[in-house]
């Protein structure tokens, strides 16, 4: 009995030590009476931000599926709707009751969606894709932050798995923006270009014959 109690104390101590290590500077602190196993500030903020972002992705993808002119943008929007719905569900299953997750996009994303909703045609395509570049860049920062400093092992694993998908989304977005703006692909998309067969060689002033694989 005494051995068990000692073991329990030890386990608590180890958990507390790990929590302390996982929290960086500027912790907001816990309310009095918070249960011992309450998720840390970082996990809660992560869930809040990533869930709001996930809802925003699905909502903007729905707009893009109906509004986009380019078939590649439509295709991208379908992929976003599919992947982010899946990720949202997976996240919801992981969330403990004690974490409050938003059930829709945050005000910033709602404003972006409203701005996009006023556009159409090629203007919409480019604005949507550029907003996607920024959102996926931000999501990558957020996921890397959680992988480093989150407390809940399942949330951190979720972040690790999601990061690979988000990197792939970013690469897709970079390739599409390059195509829409007739520029060389940037970032991850810059290292996966392949040559499009060209018939004639003496073409001045033609776009660089680069396509994304």
């Amino acid at each position, binding site marked *: 009995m005494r051995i068990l109690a000692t073991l329990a104390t030890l386990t608590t101590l180890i958990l507390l030590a790990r929590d302390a290590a996982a929290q960086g500077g500027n912790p907001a602190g816990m309310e009095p009476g918070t249960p011992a196993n309450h998720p840390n500030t970082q996990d809660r903020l992560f869930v809040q931000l990533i869930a709001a972002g996930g809802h925003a992705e699905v909502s903007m993808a729905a707009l893009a599926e109906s509004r986009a002119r380019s078939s590649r943008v439509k295709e991208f929007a379908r992929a976003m709707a599919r992947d982010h719905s899946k990720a949202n569900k997976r996240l919801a299953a992981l969330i403990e009751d004690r974490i409050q997750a938003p059930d829709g996009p945050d005000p910033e994303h709602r404003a972006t969606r409203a701005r996009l909703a006023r556009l159409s045609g090629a203007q919409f395509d480019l604005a949507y894709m550029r907003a996607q570049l920024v959102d996926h860049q931000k999501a990558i920062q957020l996921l890397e932050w959680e992988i480093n400093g989150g407390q809940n092992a399942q949330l951190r694993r979720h972040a690790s798995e999601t990061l690979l998908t988000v990197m792939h989304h970013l690469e897709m977005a970079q390739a599409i923006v390059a195509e829409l*703006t007739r520029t060389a692909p940037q*970032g991850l998309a810059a290292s996966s270009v392949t040559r499009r067969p060209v018939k004639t060689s003496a073409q001045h002033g033609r776009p660089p014959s*680069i396509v994304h694989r």
Partner: protein
Amino acid sequence: MAKSVWAASMSGLVLVASGVATLAADPLPPDVTHRPLPTQPFSVVKAKDEAQKSAIMNRQRALLARRYDLSDRPMRGIMMSGGRRAVQSGARVRLAKGMTWEALAAFSPSEIRRRGLLPEGFKPLPHVKQPTGGQVFPNREIRELIRQERRDLRRFDVDFDLPDHHTPEFPPPLFLTTHTELGDVSRGQLITIKNFYEIMNGLLTPVQMEGLRLLLTPFPQEEFNQTEDRKSADQSLGVACLDCHANFHTNAAFHLTPDVRPQAARFRLDTSSLRGLFNQQIHGSKRSIRSVEDFTEFEQRTAYFNGDHASAARKGVNLPDRANQVAMMAQMQSIVDFPPAPKLDPRGRLDPTLATQDELAGERLFMGKARCAECHVPQVAFMDNNMHDLKLERFYDVGATSNDFVMLPDGPIKTFTLRGIKDSPPYLHDGRLPTLADTVEFFNLVLGLKLTQQEKASLVAYMLAL
């Protein structure tokens, strides 16, 4: 023996006497090197400047129209790296009536000089107002800073002189060597003291972030300060480094070189891009400063105050602390990357499976007949970390005046990188060449290359891929 001692002391007397005679002569006028102190009230100077402004700008427009065709003729489908502006096509420097580029290239330098055949656009480009000089910002930068910071960089004596389509896209994308996976990290915005923290949080180290903050902080400058000796209507908070080096690239803001006197002979400087600074070993078009730390530290007396430390002291110079602030600013600048060039391999050579035949032909010329790679070495980011004198004065009469600017030889100028070159018109240190095709014609003449039309076109195609 005694005689030789006498002779020696006599010659000493003669030397002393001649020394006294030299001291008695007046030196050149007192403000030939130093900036004179203002002698008139601000309101008087402002009224005079404003009254002259339209004549000054008309004269500059006429000069530009004589030198160039600045119409908006973009290349089809060729955009700058951020996709916000098209690259302009064709050579824009005007030739004399009846002259062709081929006919011109057939003359020797001395014949061109004797007959006055050098196109005016190949000569040094004057500032809009040589006697005053100073920093002149493009309108898009001015408007955006008013919007974000309520800081107004308009001058009451001059305006920017080049049309937007002959300047870099705005705002330009920003690439970081520490986050090549992300591509442009600017979110399509001009990074300012207002938004930098939100945009860069998570991407930078605390040290880089503080360096960025300093590079975005306005400090007093010769034309933008709180004294009566300024060219902004209101007392100004000053100028930030990135007001010219917008998003660490360039917005084509121009200035006069701080490194030459007298004032009439100071040549124009086009803001250079800071992309790829991590590979650059010498800094400043004319000064060959050996580290970015040295350059950053001293710009408060050069770009800001024309190389006049006395004037700087009077207007409130900010001298950053070397051990901390300078180091942090330098570390931020040293992570600014070039835009992507997916057709280049890791050694800076075209990947033949990605490049077109035309681009490959351009590269062969670049490495051979056109002699570009003798200075713009592909494997060291298209630089050689040296300065070279093209001796353009072989082609024109030194000392001629153009819009109050006395054209002296340029002397040695730093080799600039050609990576991402399509993003940074106008070209050469003073921005005298509007397009890449102009640079090919310029070097064809200056280096006596005898390139054919097809070869010139291939070189342009190659440079667009860099």
